[in-house]
């Protein structure tokens, strides 16, 4: 059994840093994409008729009922069959965004449902138009109500970025397991990997708690 050798980590700091940057980048890009698509879905569900809603429902159920890894394989390896050839990084971000969008859409929808109906009635009694009600009553209240759920989903997505290593996105897990296989220093690399993710998740949760406290400060 070889000695524990921290030099494996310290000598590869720049590669590990690049991996960490890719993890952060894919995570943030995936979250932004997921939030945008999820919000669009929730709005369409609010406005559109039965058929559009059924299609959106099917989209959400499909993405929530299948593993992220299978979705990623479908996008990355199955994509070329219908003319969609993507770089690993693009496929990773798109996959993360689509996967996240289904969960975000559900969070937004439950937020819209949680806005008290009395507020909507009061707004329409005051003569506000449908759009005014959506923009001034429904969306602002919905956002505040779902902050905890959104924060939680964003943290879950940070851990899902590890799965992107399987389709060769050069993020943290990919870089560190690569170094591990090349040097047989599995203990050092895997420990470093755990420390990185624990720090990432812990910092993200602290930031989330801070954002929650700040955004919901006027709620009693």
């Amino acid at each position, binding site marked *: 059994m070889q000695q524990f050798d921290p030099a494996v980590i310290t000598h590869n700091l720049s590669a590990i840093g690049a991996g960490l940057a890719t993890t952060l980048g894919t995570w943030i890009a995936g979250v932004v994409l997921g939030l945008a698509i999820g919000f669009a879905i929730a709005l369409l569900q609010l406005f559109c008729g039965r058929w559009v809603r059924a299609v959106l429902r099917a989209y959400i159920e*499909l993405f929530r009922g*299948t593993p*992220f890894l*299978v979705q990623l*394989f479908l996008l990355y390896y199955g994509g070329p069959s219908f003319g969609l050839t993507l770089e690993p990084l693009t496929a990773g971000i798109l996959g993360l965004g689509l996967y996240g969008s289904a969960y975000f859409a559900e969070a937004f929808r439950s937020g819209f449902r949680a806005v008290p109906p009395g507020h909507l009635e009061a707004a329409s009694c005051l003569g506000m138009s449908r759009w005014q009600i959506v923009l001034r009553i429904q969306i602002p209240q919905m956002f505040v109500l779902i902050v905890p759920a959104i924060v939680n989903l964003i943290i879950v997505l940070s851990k899902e970025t590890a799965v992107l290593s399987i389709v060769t996105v050069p993020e943290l*897990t990919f870089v560190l397991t690569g170094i591990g296989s090349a040097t047989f220093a599995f203990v050092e690399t895997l420990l470093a990997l755990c420390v990185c993710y624990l720090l990432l*998740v*812990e910092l993200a949760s602290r930031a989330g708690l801070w954002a929650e406290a700040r955004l919901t400060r006027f709620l009693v």
Partner: protein
Amino acid sequence: MFSMTVFVQGIPLLLQAAVATIGISLAGLVIGFFVAIGVCSARLSPSRAWRAAGGAYVFFFRGVPMLVQLLLVYYLLPFVGINVPPLVAAISTVSLCSASYIAEILRGGFLSIPPGQIEAARMLGLPPLDTLRRILVPQAFRLTLPSLVNEMVLLIKASSLISVVGIAEVTRTAQNIAASTYRPLEAYVAAGLIYFVICGALSLLAHAAEARLQYA
């Protein structure tokens, strides 16, 4: 174009693999449940050291992606001289990981039982073990059952990751089909369908259980 033949021929193979997926997830849920009882007791224990240990367990297993945990078990155990077959590594990872989530579910369940009931039981002279068995566990079980079924759905999906260590569950089998037919689209659509059916059935079960237990 989408080849219906590959898709249809893949289904029986994937159904066989689904047995492995369900088996590993179920084993993970059951073993994880028992580990979780220990972790949850530690977290609710009066001793500060036990609480810290339980907290550290949950912190680690919820803070590290399951893929990384799987690599840890798979690479580190042989390194310290314990040789485990991939299947054992997979089931242990799934169990240890699910235990951290189930422990939190159970903790929520136990904490939502009014403390007045425990005081009343003590007043009536009920021994602590009987209080646990007849008052706390039945109520906590009813409160947490929907979450536990939901956890099973999460495990079914998370178990796709163990394809990485070469176990022939649904995702791995789909990879094999894709490799031998050069038709990844059909293989992964079929795999997705299998997962979707399993998860959908479990969700329906969760709704049924919830509806039933509300009147119990």
